[in-house]
């Protein structure tokens, strides 16, 4: 038998049920893998004792015939989710030491479904970044390296960089991610794994540290499409504690999963062909189109005319919401406080926030504060909200011509640490293909498509209608079967 850590979520769940191994063996194997991979800096907190405790409960449940959907499966949880009794910082120093007294709904749902927790995964600070370099706890190093013989450390993408690295390095079979403007999909593409952002409102935001509330959405990242379907089913569901939670039953995504997509119309948006994108991205895109055609789908060229405005729209709306959400970090109720030598309450706020926030977070809070300030609200924020409506309308119209969209996930393969960190706008461009679906609240998934000339993974994105996660997952499965992506990073850590 292959090593337990080579197994994904479904294989562990089923193997455990079949008696091939105990939950304890699974937890031991992953706990050891996590401890041996500290060179990746994927975890900010390791919780081997919690993984073991869940495994013991799973082994007892199996003995007494009380198995739960995820019994025996250990998972990594992004540090954006509040976890009872376990430090939760959103990888920001301003929250260092914060130990929630409650669980987020999403991570709580996973634990209630029988899953164990391996630890809290590193990420860009408050999910603001595309390379994991803004983390207050140091960048995550991708398990992947270029095939040029150089050992330049690469980014696993962001903001769910620790999540992506953990799955790719086989130190967690599945993980939670969150996606505000591509933070599940871009890292999934960078490390050759699968990740889905569901429709806005499918997963509760309760207990998830808020970045941009009209965009934030949790989702799973795992080795393949089926594992994502299994996890998403456990994570999603109506939650009265989140006013934007959708009061709808959770579909049986796994049971209904089907690679039969004959007759589906798959749109190829012409505006996603942009200048300056490496030829290899176009090549995998063409290959992906051929695979979809082979699966029996009808390929149609479509237009989403406002695509080019999605990124600047996002970089007004997301910072505006962030400036409001992050006002709560004031050194009074949780996290760190810094008292200046003199002054009163205001000076304490200012010193606390100056010391606790990193450069990118400060930049976004200030942009957000500016676009919401008197005299500029209409020109910036209101205009962006109107353009957002036009972007959503583009998608509404395109669904008259097709059922799904197939696009690249990111405009490049993973880049080296430090390569873009001094140029905010170059960094923002990473999410050029991911942001439109976020602004429209649509389900979107990245699936691995192949390797580039340097041996690095490239991903393609499947976008679906609101609430049609099933269509996205089905097309993803048909894609995955044809791509046959089995490449993995050689262990060096």
């Amino acid at each position, binding site marked *: 038998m292959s090593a337990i850590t080579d197994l994904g979520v479904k294989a562990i769940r089923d193997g455990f049920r079949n008696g091939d191994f105990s939950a304890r063996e699974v937890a031991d194997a992953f706990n050891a893998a996590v401890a041996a991979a500290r060179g990746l800096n994927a975890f900010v907190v390791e919780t081997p004792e919690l993984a073991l405790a869940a495994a013991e409960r799973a082994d007892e449940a199996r003995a007494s015939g009380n198995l739960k959907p995820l019994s025996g499966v250990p998972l990594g949880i992004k540090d954006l989710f509040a976890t009872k009794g376990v430090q939760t910082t959103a990888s920001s120093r301003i929250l260092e030491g914060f130990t929630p007294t409650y669980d987020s709904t999403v991570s709580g749902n996973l634990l209630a479904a029988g899953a164990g927790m391996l630890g809290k995964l590193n990420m860009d600070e408050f999910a603001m970044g595309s390379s994991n370099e803004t983390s207050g706890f140091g960048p995550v190093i991708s398990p992947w390296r270029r095939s040029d013989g150089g050992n330049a450390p690469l980014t696993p993408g962001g903001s769910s960089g620790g999540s992506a690295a953990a799955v790719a390095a086989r130190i967690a079979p599945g993980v939670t991610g969150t996606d505000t403007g591509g933070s599940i999909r871009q890292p999934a593409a960078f490390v050759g794994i699968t990740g889905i952002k569901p429709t806005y409102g499918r997963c509760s935001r309760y207990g998830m540290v808020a970045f941009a509330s009209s965009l934030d959405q949790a989702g799973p990242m795992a080795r393949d499409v089926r594992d994502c379907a299994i996890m998403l089913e456990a994570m999603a569901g109506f939650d009265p504690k989140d006013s934007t939670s959708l009061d709808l039953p959770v579909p049986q995504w796994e049971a209904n999963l089907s690679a039969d997509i004959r007759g589906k119309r798959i749109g190829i948006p012409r505006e996603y062909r942009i200048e300056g994108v490496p030829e290899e991205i176009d090549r995998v895109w063409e290959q992906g189109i051929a695979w979809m055609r082979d699966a029996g789908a009808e390929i149609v060229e479509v237009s989403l005319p406002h695509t080019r405005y999605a990124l600047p729209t996002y970089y007004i709306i997301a910072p505006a919401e962030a400036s409001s959400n992050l006002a709560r970090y004031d050194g009074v109720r949780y996290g760190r406080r810094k008292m200046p030598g003199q002054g009163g309450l205001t000076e304490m706020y*200012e010193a606390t*926030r100056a010391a606790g926030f990193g450069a990118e977070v400060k930049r976004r809070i200030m942009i957000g504060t500016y676009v919401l300030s008197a005299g500029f609200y209409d020109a910036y924020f209101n205009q962006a909200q109107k353009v957002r*409506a036009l972007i959503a309308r583009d998608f509404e119209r395109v669904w008259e011509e097709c059922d799904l969209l197939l696009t690249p996930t990111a405009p490049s393969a993973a880049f080296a640490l430090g390569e873009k960190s001094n140029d905010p706008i170059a960094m923002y461009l990473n999410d050029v293909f991911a942001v439109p679906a976020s602004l429209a609240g649509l389900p979107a998934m990245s699936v691995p498509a192949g390797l580039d000339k340097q041996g690095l993974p490239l991903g393609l994105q499947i976008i679906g209608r609101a609430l049609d996660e099933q269509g996205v997952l089905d097309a993803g499965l048909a894609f995955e079967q044809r791509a046959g992506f089995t490449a993995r990073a050689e262990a060096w850590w």
Partner: protein
Amino acid sequence: MSVDTATVRHIARLARIAVSDGEVEALLPELNNILGWVEQLQEVDVAGVEPMTAVIPNRQRLRADEVSDGAIREQVLANAPVAEHGFFAVPKVIE
């Protein structure tokens, strides 16, 4: 539109983030680059378009008007940097 150093200081003050002179100098071109880049939204014709506030149609729910929480003072204060006598404690604001 672009900002000057006085505006950067004003924004920082509104955002309650202390900034040094050096940070203001560094932030000035960064913020202007970003603001110059988002400026392109002004060219979009939005006549008759309502600003979008909810991406997925959803209704505002009301819950029953009854107490569903409380009596967890210890939990609420558990993470406070300074808590005294069952309250959050801050520097004196009234002389």
